[in-house]
């Protein structure tokens, strides 16, 4: 392997392409100057400014309400959907339809949901954003859990029944624990997706309860401030933590 060391050049270049913009953002969030072309020394003042900004604080709370609620609902429904599809419909078409909301363009989903909410007379609010996020979140959870079911020995449930367990006991003591790595990974995925979701939220949110991405969007229209950089850096931190812990959880529970 070490003999083809020159292959490292495109590797490094690719990573640089991926991460330099993010690195610049993080560095600029600590710039004392408001001017991105002028480094005026290290400062954390933009971070403290963030916490004083009422609009951002409210946006953060709104986003957390949506993300936590959507994660819980999407995880429960997505898991049940995955088990149902895997157990009763051994059909690629049914499986594909359960995944579709994860794949179709956000814009299409957003317009569709907006039209649907209008049709059934739901007032746009945080609740409608939450429901909208459950729609695609569920699809992601079921995709991950279906993959997990594929790796799980299908006779585990029969073995449990054979050893004297009822169907309910089998579900809670065997089915759920053996799918846990997939369920947890799916939940964390939905949480990170919901956290920074803009398009669907923009279409389905009420005017008085903007989520954090909507708040950022309205601020950015007047130029990127270092405050926004600080906020983005924090979001990055949260997403990275979740992704890494998701990987760790999956690996830990897999190494049984």
């Amino acid at each position, binding site marked *: 392997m070490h003999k083809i060391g020159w292959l490292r050049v495109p590797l490094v270049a690719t990573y640089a392409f991926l991460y330099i913009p993010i690195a610049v953002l993080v560095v600029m969030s600590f710039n004392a100057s408001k001017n991105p072309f002028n480094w005026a020394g290290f400062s954390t003042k933009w971070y403290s400014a963030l916490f004083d900004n009422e609009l951002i604080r409210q946006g953060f709370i709104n986003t957390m309400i949506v993300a936590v609620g959507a994660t819980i609902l999407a995880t429960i429904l997505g898991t049940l959907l995955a088990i149902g599809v895997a157990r009763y419909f051994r059909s690629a078409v049914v499986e594909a339809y359960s995944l579709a909301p994860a794949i179709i363009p956000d814009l299409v989903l957003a317009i569709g949901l907006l039209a649907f909410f209008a049709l059934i007379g739901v007032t746009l609010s945080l609740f409608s954003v939450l429901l909208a996020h459950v729609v695609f979140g569920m699809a992601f959870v079921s995709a991950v859990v279906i993959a997990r079911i594929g790796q799980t*020995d299908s006779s585990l449930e*029969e073995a449990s029944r*054979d*050893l*004297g367990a009822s169907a309910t006991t089998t579900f809670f003591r065997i089915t759920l624990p053996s799918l846990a790595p997939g369920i947890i990974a799916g939940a964390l995925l939905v949480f990170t997706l919901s956290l920074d979701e803009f398009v669907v939220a923009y279409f389905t949110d009420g005017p008085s309860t903007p989520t954090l991405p909507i708040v950022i969007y309205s601020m950015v229209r007047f130029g990127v401030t270092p405050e926004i950089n600080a906020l983005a850096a924090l979001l990055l931190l949260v997403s990275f933590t979740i992704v890494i812990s998701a990987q760790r959880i999956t690996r830990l529970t897999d190494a*049984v």
Partner: protein
Amino acid sequence: MTLETPLLSISGVSKAYGDVVALDNVSLDIRQNEFFALLGPSGCGKTTLLRSIAGFEDPDAGTITILGSESTTPINLLSLPPNKRPVNLMFQSYALFPHMNVRKNIMYGLQREGLSKEEIAQRVDEVLITTGLTDKAAVRPAQLSGGQRQRVALARAIVKRPRLLLLDEPLSALDRKVRAEMQIELKRLQHEVGITFVVVTHDQEEAMSMADRIAVMHEGRVQQIADPVTLYAQPANVFVADFIGSGSLLHGVANQGSFSAYGSTFPCHNPDQIAGDAVLVLRPEEVRITAAAPTDNPLMVGSIIETHFYGGSSSTTVRVAGVDHPIVASHPGAPQYIVGDQVGLSWNPQSAVLLQVQP
């Protein structure tokens, strides 16, 4: 033959999946404490039958009953869900719960019975000793070898003290050496715990070496039920003769004490007065190799195409002109002839089994 009521009684069981018939009017009895094997090629229905006993398949017709532990009236198994049947199944994949350690895997079934903590602990400890797993109790299945996993699966099933233990291809996931050890181990355990075993296998050597009685199955039907020696020496039909043991089958026509095939006539033992299309079964150890000279009265003459020396014994494969497949002879010691030699073949007419070919 004993007159006791059989432990498990299968009667007229049929099962079809669409047009595919998996079980066709299967009836058999399994006795108390016996080591019974369901043997057949894949797709013969043996696994469907096993799963019907365990409760994971619902036969279209027929009954399966089992003697209860106290009462002498048989219980109708088919009316019970799998978790209420006094039988346990050891799965081919072992189906160990990956999120539980060995001890918890074994405890699982006892906890479902609502036994006291003390009794569960005591029974689990006992079975850990019986299966030699005491030092693995805290380990998760993923860290065990194939043989150890099989022991856990076995322990998890026998700790329930079922009336009947069903084993689905118990040795197929093991490599050759471990398989030989586990064959002996299974026999030992069966004696030790005194549970009736029903093993499904496609491996005739495995079935022959372990089972007290074997049911040979083919295309959803039971072909013959007998002990291993009878199956080998007196196969009921051509399928059983071909499937059990090795040997050459000569296709020909039987007629009043003689058997004609490939333009020659051979003496044969024909107590059943078989007439018409028939098959003569020549087991390798019954075939003698002699010189080709007519003075030795060979029944057939051919040339050697292969010899194998196994240490204590050897086998010689002979091609006879006009016979579509070669004839194998085995004998103690080293091969007496080399490839290319012309030799004579003969056998004792009493030891070659003649079977009617069903039209």
